[in-house]
């Protein structure tokens, strides 16, 4: 095997963390929605693409990257509110597959709507000027935008942690994840909590899409591989575990970037191999509780 200099490996790990930051945001949204509502959102990848395209649209109307960074999660989150209220809500109490199937059908509609409005060709998205260029991070120069990605993901994780652990609303959320019936008996409007959680989760998907756009551009189909990869992250981390989503997101990102350096032809397959190993050794995921979903 060829010897790789240590600083190159370190930079590659850092690149993996940046990629992982996007996975973390995606998996947090999936895990939040699942942990509270018991719904696997198959439209998560399509909403990721929608986030990128809402950003592209806003940029086209003269907004800058930063304004879009605030507006995109709000817009996609608002779309999520509508989806929960009018499409997912009628399915509570039905078999667990039903909301999953519904969001699966929704993904087709969203992706095709994007194609109708923006066309089939991918749209390039430029890195904002402020974040162009590279920065010295001790072992070498590293694209500033990727440092920014890691920072945003860290901020979101911190904010989410504060929300869940330090606010009254977070208390209601945690209680709702454990026992919605008791919560309802205590006088909390659980339906409204679920609505907001769905909006929050989908908003995170939109944010991830807009953050990923400068790296890969925007394409209507960009959500399909992302959905599979986000599922890998949730399976590795443990479904419904937020800590698992963070650790597994970074782990999957680093696995991908390291194999693309050491064995490029294996890169795309490597994260699925990681998932297979986790399933064999610890089927509930790294931070999942045994029982429940596992046979």
């Amino acid at each position, binding site marked *: 095997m060829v010897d790789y200099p240590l600083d190159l490996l370190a930079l590659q790990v850092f690149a993996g963390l940046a990629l992982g930051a996007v996975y973390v945001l995606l998996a947090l949204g999936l895990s939040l929605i699942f942990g509270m509502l018991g719904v696997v959102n198959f439209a998560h990848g399509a909403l990721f693409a929608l986030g990128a395209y809402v950003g592209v649209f806003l940029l086209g109307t003269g907004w800058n990257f930063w304004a879009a960074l605030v507006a995109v999660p709000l817009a996609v989150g608002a779309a999520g509110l509508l989806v929960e209220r009018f499409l997912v809500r009628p399915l509570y109490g039905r078999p667990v597959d039903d909301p999953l199937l519904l969001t699966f059908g929704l993904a087709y509609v969203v*992706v095709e709507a994007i194609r109708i409005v923006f066309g089939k060709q991918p749209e390039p998205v430029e890195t904002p000027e402020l974040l162009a260029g590279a920065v010295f991070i001790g072992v070498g120069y590293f694209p500033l935008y990727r440092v920014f990605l890691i920072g945003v993901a860290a901020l979101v994780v911190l904010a989410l942690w504060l929300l869940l652990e330090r606010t009254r609303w977070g208390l209601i959320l945690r209680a709702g994840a454990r026992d919605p019936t008791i919560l309802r008996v205590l006088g909390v409007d659980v339906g409204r909590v679920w609505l907001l959680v769905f909006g929050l989760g989908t908003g995170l998907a939109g944010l991830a899409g807009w953050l990923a756009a400068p790296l890969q551009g925007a394409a209507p189909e960009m959500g399909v591989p992302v959905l599979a990869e986000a599922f890998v992250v949730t399976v590795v981390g443990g479904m419904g575990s937020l800590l698992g989503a963070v650790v597994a997101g970074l782990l999957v990102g680093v696995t991908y970037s390291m194999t693309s350096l050491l064995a490029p032809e294996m890169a795309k397959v490597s994260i*699925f191999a990681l998932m*297979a190993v986790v399933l064999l050794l610890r089927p509930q995921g790294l931070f999942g509780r045994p029982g429940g*979903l596992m046979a």
Partner: protein
Amino acid sequence: MSGTAAPTRARLPGLAPLAEWGMRHRVFGTWLALAALPLLLPSTALATSVVAYGLYALGFNLLFGWGGLLSFGHAALLGGGAYATGIAIAHYGAPWWAAIGVAPVAGAGVAFLMGVLAVRTRGIYFAMVTLALSQCAYHVAYQAVGWTGGENGLRGVNLREVALPFGMVLDGLDPRVRYGLVAVAAGLAVAAVSRVLDSPFGAALAALRENEARARACGYDVRAVRLLAFVLSGAVCGLAGGLLAIHLSVVPVETMHYATSGLAVMLAILGGMHSFFGPFAGAAAFLLLESAVARWTEHWPLVAGTVFMLCVLFFREGIWGTLVGWLRR
């Protein structure tokens, strides 16, 4: 209801017994449909597609409708069979019976590899894991250019002749011959699936779907039953893939794509996951609607997605299930 005035609901006399007959003789009924299909549809090619995709959806529904396991990875099973048949014909010039014969074996093999991992999970986890594994299979097919043609697809899958016993040779390029080949293979597979569902194994599968804890308490090995169901489903879907490869003369890499996995889910839901013939009806309705919609818009997925959501929200039994339920009322 008896004793009160007769229900005012419109009833078509004579059709209820027909529905009962169809439920009792589901294999024979399907064979009749296979025989009539080329006469009912505008082209033989469309009829062949309906049969191949119908068999794919039936194989998927063996796991979903009867076993209660929702897989989003069946594209890998269809693709495994399609590539096996395609490689047998394009690389080795195999005769028709060998080319078709390897398809279910390959489908079952891929299903075994995926199933060993996937049956360790259940419920919605199962859907996620099978989706991820089939995405992995897609990347493998995409990169194994020497075998699969990679991005360009596997070309040259031309079955030129179908040699029968007693020196009879049929022209493999004639669409009617291809339909016959596909329909006979599918008809045999349908009979096999029906037999499996009637067997003690079929009862065990249904027991797992209805109440896993009780089935386990009865002594069933949950993982083994599910793995076997997945492998059988893989054999049927693999065969469907092989038939599709012969029908299309090419195996595009999209056969392995996520959208193909989703197609099986759509067909089963659209036709009716709780009825034996539903997946076939779903395939027929889907492909007919697709070719009709294609005349006025290229945005077929928008229509398909909307119809699918409406089915999930309001017509959970699908077209065929609703129709049969209505006739038997």
